[in-house]
């Protein structure tokens, strides 16, 4: 009983705090200074039509690097955790056969999902989307593949190679920006091109391609690690 009162007190305190901070104020009538700078100077400085992409890749590129690092850390801890278990006991598992419809549909749809993921991260600087979304779409294609064929082995070496190369290239592009343009992860060392076309915004599409490959590889690694553990009898 005392515990329930304590829970209610904590929740009420949180509610008061959050409502005071956000709930009562209406929406702004105009942009604040930072956002106005991104909106006015973004097209000339970065050249990406999608302003969210220009914020993520260039203005706050360092945050994105940190985010990719956190994701990499989570993926490797999961791999390490589940791997230690997998080595001790290895028994063949019988899985229920999946339905014909799922198997056939997965064969047709999976390549299309991969293609769509690649489209999303290549066009990330022009349309809503980008590296993270594209990578997540690619990983969801892999999930469909594993649902249709649960005993399938995913080659971890390929995932590891793609992940390492794209992470390394991301940092390398950042260092090129430091040497040839204004600073770390500056995209202006490549020509900015025509605003709104595929080959524009300097290094932004390149960086997004590498982010997309890296996120796709990491999420695929997490999914396949979990799937391999699931085959064991717990």
């Amino acid at each position, binding site marked *: 009983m005392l515990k329930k009162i304590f*829970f209610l007190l*904590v*929740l009420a305190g*949180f*509610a008061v705090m*959050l*409502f005071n901070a*956000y*709930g009562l104020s*209406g*929406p*702004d*009538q*105009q*942009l*604040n200074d*930072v*956002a*106005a700078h*991104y*909106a*006015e100077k*973004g*097209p000339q400085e970065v050249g990406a*039509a*999608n*302003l*969210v992409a220009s*914020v*993520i890749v260039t203005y*706050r590129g360092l*945050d*994105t690097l940190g*985010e990719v690092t*956190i*994701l990499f850390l*989570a*993926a490797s*801890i*999961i791999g390490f*955790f*589940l791997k230690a*278990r997998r080595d001790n006991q290895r028994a063949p598992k019988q899985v229920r056969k999946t339905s014909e419809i799922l198997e056939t549909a997965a064969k047709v749809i999976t390549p299309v999902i991969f293609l769509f993921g690649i489209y999303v991260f290549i066009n990330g600087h*022009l*349309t*809503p989307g*980008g590296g*993270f979304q594209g990578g*997540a779409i690619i990983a969801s294609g892999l999930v469909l593949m594993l649902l249709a064929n649960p005993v399938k082995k995913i080659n971890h070496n390929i995932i590891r190679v793609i992940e390492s190369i794209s992470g390394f290239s991301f940092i390398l592009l950042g260092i090129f920006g430091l040497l040839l343009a204004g600073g770390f992860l500056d995209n202006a060392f490549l020509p900015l091109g025509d*605003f*709104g076309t595929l080959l524009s915004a300097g290094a932004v599409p390149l960086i997004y391609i590498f982010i997309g490959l890296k*996120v796709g590889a990491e*999420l695929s690694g*997490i999914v396949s*690690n*979990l799937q391999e*553990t699931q085959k064991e009898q*717990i």
Partner: protein
Amino acid sequence: MEHISLSQIAIVAGILLILIGLWAIISQRNIIKMIIGFSLFDTGIHIVMVGVGYVRGKTAPVLDEAVNVKEAARQIVDPLPQALVLTAIVIGLGITALMLAYALRLYQKKKTLDVKKFNDLKW
């Protein structure tokens, strides 16, 4: 109450989600339910952040035919919270996967998911 805007609805809904998630984290005993509570908390924070960045009557921060590049600052919503939420979603996904992997290992060790049974560090 004469004028409730879209972003206020979004913020209130987000805060309610945060409170539900917090309730699940502090009151549930099953680890999986606590992880679900964490996910709700996370989603609520994202909704509140996007709602805070909304500017009344403006469009998405993508400069295409709908937005005049010269006048962009007066036609779009704030792109910064959207970029931060994008970052937060991906990190939330990674953390959730990590917590599920921990939960799996804890279950393999003790054959239970009840937090009350994990009292090895209690004295």
